[in-house]
């Protein structure tokens, strides 16, 4: 039995009378690549924000790497990395500086800081651009830098909210290549959201489909496809559980945030 690194129990978040995440229960094993799918407004970002201790749950809870998100937030924060939906590196610092500040904030031992940063830059293929201002980076480079930044401290779980939104196919592949390598090298558990089904199909060990705050389906892609009978694709599964890709729950804030992200990422 594999080690459970993420254990979510009845996790619920309401905004006023509106329930954005409705009694979510699931667990993720150490080293797994886990994809959370769902149409706009399904509650994916809200779920990730609760798991990363940014948003307190209304009820229910979760343990991340053994720490409770409600009572041991600092423990959780030490154990995770987080790549938000929007751009999270600072354009007025160089790539190297963006990494250095996080090396310091995560208490990496002084002797190891430079080596870790060099390794992360090399790993993400950014060594040549380390001294350039991030404002000059392309969207794909920004994403790779963000991943480097949030994994410097070797987190047990890396949360990524739409890591490839707004990227061209080549940049997207590059990001995934690095994510997959990272799991192989450090055993990092990847918990990510995406709207790209083919991404889920080719990289995830298991996926969950959320719809209007509820968990509607959970399993490997093959299991979910088979559950609808022979000859079904992941797209059919998605349409079956989540309606069409862009139906309810779609609101201005979500869309404008995504557009803005896409724009900034070029």
């Amino acid at each position, binding site marked *: 039995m594999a080690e459970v690194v993420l254990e979510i129990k009845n996790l619920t978040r309401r905004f006023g009378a509106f329930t954005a995440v409705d009694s979510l229960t699931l667990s993720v094993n150490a080293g797994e690549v886990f994809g959370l799918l769902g149409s706009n407004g399904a509650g994916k970002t809200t779920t990730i924000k609760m798991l990363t*201790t*940014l*948003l307190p749950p209304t009820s229910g809870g979760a343990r991340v790497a053994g720490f409770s998100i409600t009572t041991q937030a600092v423990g959780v924060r030490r154990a995770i990395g*987080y790549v938000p939906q*929007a751009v999270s590196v600072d354009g007025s610092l160089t790539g190297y500086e963006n990494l250095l500040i996080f090396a310091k*904030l995560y*208490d990496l031992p002084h002797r190891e800081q430079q080596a870790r940063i060099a390794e992360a830059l090399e790993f993400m293929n950014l060594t040549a651009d380390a001294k350039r201002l991030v404002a000059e980076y392309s969207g794909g480079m920004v994403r790779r830098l963000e991943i480097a930044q949030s994994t410097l401290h*070797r987190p047990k779980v890396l949360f990524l909210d739409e890591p490839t939104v707004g990227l061209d196919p080549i940049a997207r592949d590059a990001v995934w290549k690095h994510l997959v390598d990272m799991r192989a090298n450090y055993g990092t558990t990847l918990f990510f959201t995406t709207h790209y089904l083919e991404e889920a199909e080719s990289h995830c060990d298991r996926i969950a489909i959320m719809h209007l705050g509820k968990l509607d389906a959970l399993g490997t892609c093959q299991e979910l496809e088979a559950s609808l009978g022979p000859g079904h694709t992941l797209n059919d599964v998605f349409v079956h559980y989540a309606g069409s890709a862009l139906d309810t729950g779609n609101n201005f804030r979500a869309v404008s945030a995504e557009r*803005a992200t896409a724009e900034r990422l070029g």
Partner: protein
Amino acid sequence: MTATFIHPLTSFVEKTFVITEFELRKLRHDFTELVTRALQPALWLLIFGQVFARNGAMHTGNIPYLDFIAPGILAQSVLFVAIFYGINVIWERDLGIVQKFLASPTPRAALVLGKGFSAGIRTLSQGVIVYGLSLLLGVKLNWSPLALLNVLVIIILAATLFSTFSLVIACFVKTRERFMGVGQVLTMPLFFASNAIYPTDMMPGWLKMVSHLNPLTYVVDALRTCMLADSTSTFGLSFDYLVILVTTTVLVLVGARLYPRLAT
């Protein structure tokens, strides 16, 4: 994952300076801002100050009016620069930067105070400008090293105070538009309900009372005491420091409580 045990207080101080350091590194490309910021104190001292000094409209006791307002204008420009600091925080929130820092184990108070200090250090340039102008206008300054050190510390503390206040506002309003509105509404009253450009003795009773609740009044009093060659403090320098330090501490604690709101 590296788990080293570090005493919370050491960690707090260390993280505060890490935040300050990187905020200051961002300044390297910011020279236009330094120039535009010089303009406002120059206008106040050269135009407003000159006109009112000539009329003798203000009774500022044994010190000339220009000498009287030089520290007031310094305090004012510190206030004006610091009070809009929160806009950066809103900008960083609209990107995902605030969220990323909040998901790290950094103490919230260190995030807030670190930013405050950096605003403090950025604002030192205002001191240089006002000293330069004062020299030009023949204001009698106190050049003793102790006095200069005091002015330096007061500028940093005052900017920390007002930038943290600004951050607290940002945590409430969350959008740039509302922030600009609130910022504009607040700065003028803070400035006018203080002893920056006229002695509080000239004020009607109610305004005088308000000015005594205004931290800017104590900043001005402290600056006036240390900057000028012959000036006596109204409230006593230690009391000024006390008010400034206590207000800053309270604001940092409030800011640390409110800062996580920006991630939601």
